[in-house]
Structure formats: C-alpha cells, structure tokens
C-alpha cells in the first residue's frame, strides 16, 4: 500500500483510490466532478509530453480530463 504518491505519477491503465489532497487550492469543481476521498479511479488516456490526463471516475462511469499540475495535488493509493 503506497499512500503518498500523487495522481500524476500513475500510468495509463492503472487504478487507484483517492486518498486526500495536498492543499486546499483545488476549485470546488474538482470535488463536484467526483474527485472525492475514497473514490476509485482509473487512468484511461494521457496526452503526450506531460499533457492532460483523462481519468475515469469508476462509480459515475464518467471521463474527466485534468492537467498534471492539478493531478499533482491529489494523493492516491494504488489498487
């Protein structure tokens, strides 16, 4: 169980659950779209050269894209 990695470190196809957040900087929209503690996620696509990541919020069956800068603020545990 690795608790201290951030979301941007994951590779395509990896699954994880969201653990907590590094800071309170994230806009409320992130939580509303499903990045909440305990939510299981899967990395579906990553744009080349450190481009945005496309993440599946598994419980909602939704695809959400975020930049790596913000992904770096989200702490996760790999499943």
């Amino acid at each position, binding site marked *: 169980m690795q608790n201290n990695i951030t979301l941007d470190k994951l590779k395509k196809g990896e699954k994880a659950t969201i653990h907590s*957040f590094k800071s*309170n*900087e*994230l*806009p*409320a*929209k*992130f*939580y*509303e*779209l*499903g990045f*909440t*503690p*305990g939510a299981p996620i899967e990395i*579906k*696509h*990553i*744009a*080349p*050269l*450190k*481009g*945005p990541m*496309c993440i*599946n919020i598994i*419980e*909602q*069956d*939704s*695809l*959400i*894209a*975020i*930049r790596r*800068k*913000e992904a770096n603020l989200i702490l996760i545990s790999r499943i």
Partner: protein
Amino acid sequence: MKRKTIALLGNPNVGKTSLFNRLTKLNQKVGNYPGITVDKRIGTLKTNTTEYKIIDLPGTYTLFPSSLDEEVVFNILSNQTNEDFPDLTVVVTEPSSINRGIVIYQQVRELGLPAIFVVNMIDEVDQKGLHIDYPALENYLQTKVLKTNARSGEGIDQLIQNFNIELKPYFGAFDLPQKYQDALHDAKQVFPLATEYLTWQYLAQNSISNLSLEKRSALQRIRQSHQLDIQELQKDESISRHDKIAKNLASIILKKENKRLSITEKVDNLLIHPVLGYVIFFGLLFLIFQAIYSWAGPLMDGIDTLFVSLSDAIAATLPKGPLSSLLINGVIAGIGGIVIFLPQIVILFLFIAIMEETGYMSRVVFLMDRWLRPFGLNGKSVIPLMSGAACAIPAVMSARNIENPKERLLTILVTPFMTCSARLPIYIVIIGLVIPDETFLGFNLQGITLFGMYILGIVGALLSALILNKIIKSIRKSFLIFELPTYKVPDWKNVLNTVWEKSLGFLVGAGKIILAISIILWVLGNFGPNDRFSNPETYIAEANPEFSQEEIDNEVTAYKTEYSFLGYLGRGIEPAIKPLGYDWKIGIGLLASFAAREVFVGTMAVVYSLGEDIDIEDESQKQTLFGRMKSEINRNTGKPTYNFATGISLLLFYAFAMQCMATIGVVKRETGSWKWTLIQTGFMTGLAYLVALVAYQLLK
C-alpha cells in the same frame, strides 16, 4: 393570464439545451447579461392559463462559480430582486450523473427556492444498465421527479403540467460543519434576512458582485477573524454532500454494467491516441478548410452577383446623384461586405456545432491543451485560431467556449493575427509586384513567400499571446477540468439552431458597425473641400493641355479621389507613413483598408484610374494593374513606388495591422469592452507599423 419565470439548471451535457428548445419551440431570443458577454437564453411558453418565461441558465456543477457563466447562475438564484429570479427552478440531469444533479438541486432548495427534478435522456437508463426507484427518489428529494427525453419529446407535456406545482417546505440535507458555526453566527448579523445556506454561500465565496462593498468587507473581516479559507469551506461542503448523497442513493439507483462507456472507450483509443489522435484532428481541420474554401466560393460569388444586380437596379431607378451613390457605394457596398462572409461563417459553425454535439470537441481540447498552455492559451483556443485562417469574425465568436475569462480574452485578442482569406488578394498583388517569379531550390519564390506569410500569422498570434499573457492580470487561477462526454449522434435541431443563432448574431451585431463606417468612408471619398474636387475637368485640362476629352475623363475619378477628404487624409498621413516607404496613394489604400483589407486592391485601382471593377483573378486585368503599379514613381524618393523594400514593408503591415472593422465590431460585441477592442487595434496596428518601419529602413 398569469406570468411565471422558470429557470432550467443543470450540469453541462445533460441535454438541457434540447429540453429548452422543446419547451419554447424555438420561440426564444439570445441576449447578453448586463455588462458581460455570457449568452442569456430566454424563451416563452404559453399554456391556457399561464405565460412562462423560460431561462436556460449556463451549465454548472455547483453554485460555487469558477467561470463567468457560473457566476451568472449564482447571481440570479441568490437575488430575489433580479429580473430573472425564477418562480420555479427545474434541475435537469441525465441517468448516469443523477448524483451530481442532486448536489446542485440541494443547493438551490437550501437557498429557499422551489425546484423540481428532471431525469432527461430517459432512454439511456436501460442502455446504461441502471434501475431507478422513482418513488424513493421523490421521497428523498422532497419534490416531483419527472422523466423526459428531450430529443423525442417524451414527457415534455407532463413536465409543463408540473410548472404550477405547490411544494411542501424543504428540509435541508447539508449540516454545516460544527467548526464553522461561530463564523456563520457572525455572518448572520450582516444578513439578518437571508436563509442560513445563503449566508454560508456568501461566506464561502470570494467576490460576489451583487453585494455592496460594505457587506463584502464585513464578510472579509469575519473570514479573517475566524481564519477561514474559502477553498476549504467549498471543499468541506462538496465532500460532505457527495458522501451523503452516495450513501443515500445506494438503495435508490442500482447499477449493472455500463455499455456506453465501453464503446466510447474504443473510439477514444483512436481519437485521442498520442499519435493517431493528432493525425485525425489535423486531417479533419484540413477537410474543414477545404469545405470552407470550396463550398463557400460559389455561394460567395452568388451573393456578390446579387448585390451587383441590386446596385444596378438602384442605379437604373434612382436619378444619378449623391443619394444613389450613397445607396450603392455606401449602404449596399457596406452590407454586401458583411453578407459575403456569411457562407464561410455558416459552414464553419456547422462543423463546430457538430463537433460540440458529438462530444469530439472535448477531445480536441484534451489533445491541444499541452501545446497552447505555454502561450497563456487553453486547449479550447485551437478552434478560434484555426478558424481565423478562414475569417476572424466567426473565429472570435467561437472563443465563447473558453471558460477562463483571461484565456478567452487572450484568444480573442490574438486570433485576428491569423492569415484570413481577405488578406490573400493583397498578398497576391504585392508578392506579384516585388518577389521575382523564379525558382529557388526547386520551389517557386512567390509560393514560398505566400506560405511564409501564413507561418508569420501563426507566429504573430502565438508571440502576441506570450506578450499579452504577461500584461493581462488574471482574476481566476488557470486550471483545466472538463468532462469528456460519451459520443452521441448530434441533435440536428440543436446544430441548426446554433448555426442560425450565431450567423444572425454576426449579421446584426457586426453589421451595424460596418454599415456606419462604410457610410463615413463613402462621405470622405465622395466629397471634397474645394473647387479642385467639384471641377476636376478644368484642372486636368489646365495641367495637361495635350489631353483629349477621353483622356481627361479617364483621369477624373483619380483626380477626384486625390482631392476628396479621403485624399487629403491620405496626404495628411503621408509624413507618418513615409518612413515605411509609402506615398499618399498607398496612404489612401491603407485608410480605406481600415474598412476591410480587401478594399485595398479596389482602391488602388481607383487611385490609378483603372476603374473600380478590377478582377484580380482575371490575368489580363491583373497585368494592367501590375503594369501601372510597377511604373509608378514615388515622388518623395524618385524611385519606383513598389520596390522590394516597400513591398516587404507593405506585406508586413498587412500581416499585422488590424484592418477589418467587421472584426473590430465582433471583438467589441464579444468582449463587451471598448477598452480591449481599442487596445487590440492599437497593439496590432502599432506592431504592424513598427515591423514595417524596421523592415523598410533595413532593406531600402
């Protein structure tokens, strides 16, 4: 008859616009909210007893705003004196994201507003393998839950019947965290009349534009004394709501397996593939440009013919004189100059609307964000920039999709640098004059130069974005989060409605300004201050006693242009443009070009007394104009007017200068600000002057 206001509220991509179109039967209008450019969509619906005003609020996930659109939602719903404050709010959701819809539903109810709940796209419940216990959902939400399919019209009548519903008082679902109770208590003193939840919202938002300064600073003092971080307040509410809803819905919505997402995933593996995704995107862009050029061409010719015959008809009916000249050369020429762009705009918006409706647009944003971010732009800037290569007018309008106001403004400011189709005729003339028709390493030099001009447009746009990015202050932190919706067959009604709305907006909005400036230019070009303008024949005959009557007649138009107000202006600005290598004749062309670039060629033809109707695609006519221009001697320098240095200087000037009043009009409309419009015009034209100056001085 009773009048009631109904507001449609919901997340993006839930089919809210289709529902709005159904309810209002396209009986709607689009305006702007005061002071900002967020589209305000209002429609009417009449039943036997009541006339409903229906407002389609911008899509949002929460009442905490993160863009201008979302701010509008909060301002309307939190202020009972707002003219759009609803009597009933209709919260629209779709089957797979009901939980997110409930978040905003609860927020609205806790503000004290009555609301009903709509599950749209009801046909997807089975497709997505869901089972929903509606009575339990109604019980949980303490309201009526309705099922609709906006595309087929199913459930719409039932929804309308419920617009008169009387709801029981609502019991809030959100318990304010204990640690904020003291701060909330203080805030209640500032807002004795507001609901508890509204007070909490005030406390958890930074800048609420519809509160007085006094109240805002009172809130700020409370936040400081209790050491509150608004982000944390918002986060605590979101997570608390989310957890509670997830728990409560577990027994109401049962999930089996999702079939739609697996199809979407397969398509995405191709469309946002790290390599293939880009190949497909650029291929599609190429296709769009082909379509714009080849499909719009004949239509534009048709419009041109139409306006020419209209002019002819007026010329035949009205007696020759100022009135017919004003109508033909001012009004009709002005309107024609706008309408001619309509085919390009319609085709472009057709493609963009289809890309939006299918869900592909979000994928483009995903692919391009990385490449545009270093310039202070956003993935979504790619559409305006690419469209700008056809025409800046629809391109600037398509920047509306960008949520972050700073990124949107930047995109609007730099889009006119892209080489639009109106620059092409000028480039062809000038390149033909000053660049030798020779090959270099197997490539045609003129072709290379033209290609270089296109590259220059892109470089100009990106570098300007880089500079302006440093200057413009951002009111919001740049971040990017968006949903990639499942792929859908477009709702053609929505597509056509969007195209119609945007095209009409262009015609009316930009049209007014273009018409005004066309008339001003006509007045300046058709009146002169003295006898030289009113009696040109006498002066020409005096100066050139050897001229036959025919030669004199040929000179009249050019002479009148020279001594019109426009001609005096041309000579007036000569000192300013002399360092760029231009004479007063080019000056007139430049001034006239501020109406629209393509006017340059026609104006030059007038100035060199060849008659206005020169067709640059006709080889022999082109050679006549070329011959005349090549032999032209600049009376300041004694050298040919169109030498290599002047030519390059002119090319650069036209590449950068803001010389299109239609674009200026649209930018004003889209930014809602004269300040930014003037800064853009000044920045572009200033840059053009500087670059042209340096180029001429180095090359001469």
